[in-house]
Structures are given as structure tokens and as C-alpha cells.
């Protein structure tokens, strides 16, 4: 085959060809000569065709010490790391950490091509993001299969969010196909993309530019095996995004983590105020606030479909109101003469709004809110929340300072 630019010379010095690609996880210990002819790779479909010299070069940068890499697959284009389909403790711990926001923005792997099992030119190519949580979810589902995984550089963001931002997009896909010389590795010219990548990828554009036909697979990685075994048929069920109890629950830790900084500031202010107030803030304020927070960040998301109404802020406010009423009664409102009416009213104005605000923030984690809808909701909710919190805070402060 004709070979114009890539690997054309017999130059055995790999350094001469190294093109710097930022290592995404850690710099591989093995000195690897990198992808050659990146810029021309798209046009150059038959790079190294047959030449044994090129095929020993790794296409994807990887660290052999990574426990999830269990070998190598030789292709005409170069060496491809083979990945395990078993998750081990460190993968599960890593996922747990990411859920709690620990090192979340750096939980990623190198983009490139990976192998599962013993794939050949006819094996399916699955495209995914380089967020390790996403990658792990996919490889776990591929046991007993022979397949290629093409990992796009989404800066460590999951497929859906990255598609919304455009990083999981037509441009990155087209260039990644070129960089990995996929034309030689998979001659069938078909790519399987996760359906939730569709907001970023224009299937007909990809086909026009690369010759690869895009098939959108199921939404969930768990359906991949059934999809492949049934001859790439997707059922309506596999196409639909769900948002069940577990889906919602796993997202709530991140919601709570997001409130830590603000909460510390609030506690700091209350502590300072306590130095001068006649009626100091105490344990009721602490768990009143904490409860409102948990109501907005955890309980509302979990109970989402069962709370009446549609707007998230409304749902949060409703549950927050119940919480505020409970807190007031527990504090001895109406019974205890020491519990001021003003303070009770203040709680009723402030606490439900804290819940409402955090519930409204959950729109971003949900799978069914639209931009137009959230905007409409916010135009009403944000001013109401602000006014209510300001008036409530004034009442509570009046009680604190003047004891009324």
C-alpha cells in the first residue's frame, strides 16, 4: 500500500518522531515513542500498512503498572493496551472518592485506543469518555467480549456532560480516529457511541469526514452486551434515560459537599454574633440549619417524583416548610414562653428557603430538566428566596439582639 508520510522512512530513532501529548494520568515509566504523523493521520489511512517496524509502537500512552491493564494487543498500527473487565477494590474506592468530590477533576485516563479480550479488524469499536468512572463502568460490562474501546479526551468529564459542553464531540472524535489510526485497526468502519454522547456528536458529519458510520448504542453500559449480541439492536427501553431512586441517591453526596464552604461561613458569622447577642444562637439553630440543608440536598432529591408540584425549588420549599414547623414545635413554639414568636416566624421564612435553594441546584444533576424550564423556575424562585431569607434573618436577629 502506498504510504506517503507516516512511518515512511526507516528512521529507527523514535525520538525524532515524538510529538508531545500531555500525559493525562501520569507519565508512563516506559519510554514510548509517540504517535507519528498525527496531523496527516486522517488522510493517511494505510499508515505502516504491513511494516513490522511500526507495529511495536504503542498507540495509546499507558503505564504498565496500572492494575487494570493486563497485557497488550499487537495491531498493524501499533501496540494497544488490553484492559481487564474486572473492577478491583481500588477502582471501587476511586469511584466512591469521585462521588464525594475527592480528586474528582483528576480522575481520568489517557485518551486513545484500548482492547478488551482479543479483538481483531472485525471487532466492534465502542467510544467513551476518559473519566475513569465512566471507563470503568463500560469495561466492567464487556466480559467475554472482544472489542476495541476508543477513549476520547473529555478532560475527565462523563459522556453526557462532556457532550453538552462539546468536548465529547464531532471534532474530538474525528481527530481521535486519526490519532489512533483506527482505519487500520477496525476495517468495518462502524463506531458504537453511547447514546448520551449524541448532544455533542453529529453522526452524519463524522461519517462524511472519516467514513466511519456512527451507531448510537444504549444509554446504560449495562445494556451493551445485549445490544452487541442482538446485532446492534436497541430497544426503546435502552434508549430512555431513567432517574430512579439509586440514580438520585448516588448524586447526593456531591450536593452536600458543595454546601460545606457556605455552611462554615454561616457558622462563623453566628459564632461572632453570639459574642454580642442577648439571645445567643444555639443547638436549635445548628440542627435547624443542618436539617434544612439535608432536606434540600438529600431528602428532596430522593423523594423527587413523589413530592407534589414540578419545580424543584417548590418541592424543596415544601419539605423545608415541614422541617421548619417540626423544628419550631421541638423548640417549644406556642408552649414555651421563652421561645419567641418572632424567632419562630424567622425560622419559617429562612429554613424552607435554604431547602428550596439547594433543591433547585439539583436541577443540574437531574436527567430531565430543560434550560428553559430551569430559567423560568429561577426567575420566580430566586427573588422569593432572597426576600424571604432577608426578612427571616432580620426577625431572627431582632430576637437575638433585642430579645423580642
Amino acid at each position: 500500500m502506498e504510504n506517503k508520510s507516516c512511518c515512511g522512512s526507516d528512521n529507527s530513532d523514535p525520538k525524532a518522531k515524538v510529538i508531545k501529548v500531555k500525559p493525562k494520568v501520569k507519565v508512563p515509566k516506559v519510554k514510548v515513542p509517540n504517535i507519528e504523523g498525527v496531523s496527516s493521520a486522517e488522510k493517511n489511512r494505510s499508515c505502516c500498512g504491513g511494516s513490522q517496524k511500526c507495529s511495536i509502537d504503542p498507540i495509546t500512552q499507558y503505564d504498565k503498572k496500572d492494575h487494570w491493564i493486563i497485557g497488550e494487543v499487537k495491531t498493524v498500527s501499533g501496540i494497544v493496551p488490553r484492559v481487564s473487565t474486572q473492577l478491583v477494590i481500588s477502582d471501587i474506592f476511586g469511584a466512591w472518592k469521585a462521588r464525594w468530590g475527592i480528586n474528582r477533576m483528576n480522575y481520568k485516563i489517557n485518551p486513545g485506543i484500548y482492547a478488551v479480550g482479543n479483538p481483531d479488524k472485525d471487532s466492534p469499536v465502542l467510544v467513551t469518555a476518559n473519566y475513569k468512572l465512566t471507563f470503568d463502568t463500560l469495561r466492567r460490562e464487556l466480559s467475554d467480549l472482544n472489542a476495541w474501546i476508543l477513549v476520547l479526551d473529555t478532560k475527565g468529564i462523563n459522556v453526557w456532560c462532556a457532550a453538552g459542553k462539546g468536548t465529547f464531540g464531532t471534532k474530538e472524535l474525528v481527530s481521535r480516529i486519526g490519532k489512533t489510526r483506527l482505519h487500520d485497526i477496525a476495517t468495518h468502519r462502524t463506531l458504537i457511541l453511547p447514546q448520551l454522547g449524541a448532544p455533542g456528536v453529529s453522526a452524519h458529519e463524522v461519517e462524511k469526514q472519516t467514513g466511519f458510520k456512527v451507531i448510537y448504542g444504549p444509554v446504560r453500559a449495562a445494556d451493551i452486551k445485549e445490544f452487541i449480541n442482538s446485532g446492534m439492536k436497541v430497544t426503546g427501553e435502552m434508549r430512555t434515560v431513567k432517574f430512579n431512586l439509586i440514580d438520585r441517591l448516588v448524586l447526593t453526596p456531591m450536593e452536600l459537599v458543595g454546601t460545606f464552604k457556605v455552611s462554615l461561613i454561616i457558622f462563623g458569622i453566628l459564632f461572632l454574633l453570639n459574642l454580642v447577642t442577648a439571645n445567643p444562637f444555639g443547638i436549635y439553630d445548628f440542627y435547624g440549619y443542618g436539617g434544612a440543608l439535608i432536606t434540600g440536598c438529600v431528602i428532596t432529591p430522593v423523594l423527587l417524583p413523589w413530592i407534589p408540584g414540578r419545580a424543584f425549588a417548590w418541592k424543596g420549599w415544601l419539605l423545608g416548610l415541614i422541617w421548619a414547623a417540626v423544628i419550631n414545635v421541638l423548640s417549644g413554639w406556642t408552649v414555651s414562653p421563652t421561645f419567641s414568636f418572632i424567632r419562630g416566624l424567622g425560622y419559617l421564612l429562612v429554613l424552607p428557603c435554604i431547602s428550596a435553594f439547594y433543591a433547585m441546584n439539583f436541577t443540574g444533576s437531574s436527567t430531565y430538566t430543560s434550560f428553559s424550564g430551569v430559567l423560568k423556575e429561577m426567575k420566580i424562585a430566586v427573588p422569593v428566596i432572597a426576600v424571604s431569607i432577608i426578612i427571616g434573618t432580620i426577625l431572627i436577629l431582632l430576637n437575638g439582639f433585642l430579645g423580642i
Partner: protein
Amino acid sequence: MKNRYLKNVVTLKLDSNKCTGCGRCIEVCPHKVFELQNRKLRIINKDGCMECGACAKNCPFAAIEVKPGVGCAYAIIMGWLTGSEPSCDCSGSSNSNGCC
């Protein structure tokens, strides 16, 4: 129980004249918004649309129009504060608030 969001807000539009009934949009829609009827597309669940833009992006005939955006309050607040287009701040180094 089904999750439902606000009614009559989405910006989704369909130009039936341009539609060839290829069904690509049905393939990419995560909320079963479309249906083919006599080889023509129909919107059957407009309020189910979350404006992800997948249908418009994957329509080879530009028959679908939707203003895509992130349905994320945090992103909109940040957009208001910074005066920029609301976007999911997932990739930034700042602590993103659970928007993905």
C-alpha cells in the same frame, strides 16, 4: 413514578417539510419525544424534552430546531454572576457544584 418537569417551556421546533422520516432523532432522544407516523416525524411528548440538542445535531436535514442548554441552576447562577453564557463548570479547577 415518572419524573415530570415544567409544562410549555421548551424551545423545540420541527419543520415537517424538511423531515425525510429517517428516524435519527428518535434514535438519539433520551426521553421519547418523537414518533414516526406515515414516514413523517411527530412530536408526541414536547414537555419531556430537556433541550439537550441531540436531535437537532444529528438531523442531516436541519428539520429540528432547539436552543440547547444545560438545565442546571448552578450554571445559570454562575452565568448571571459572570455575565457569560450559562455552562456547566465541570472542567474547571474550581469546585463545581454537583452539576454532573
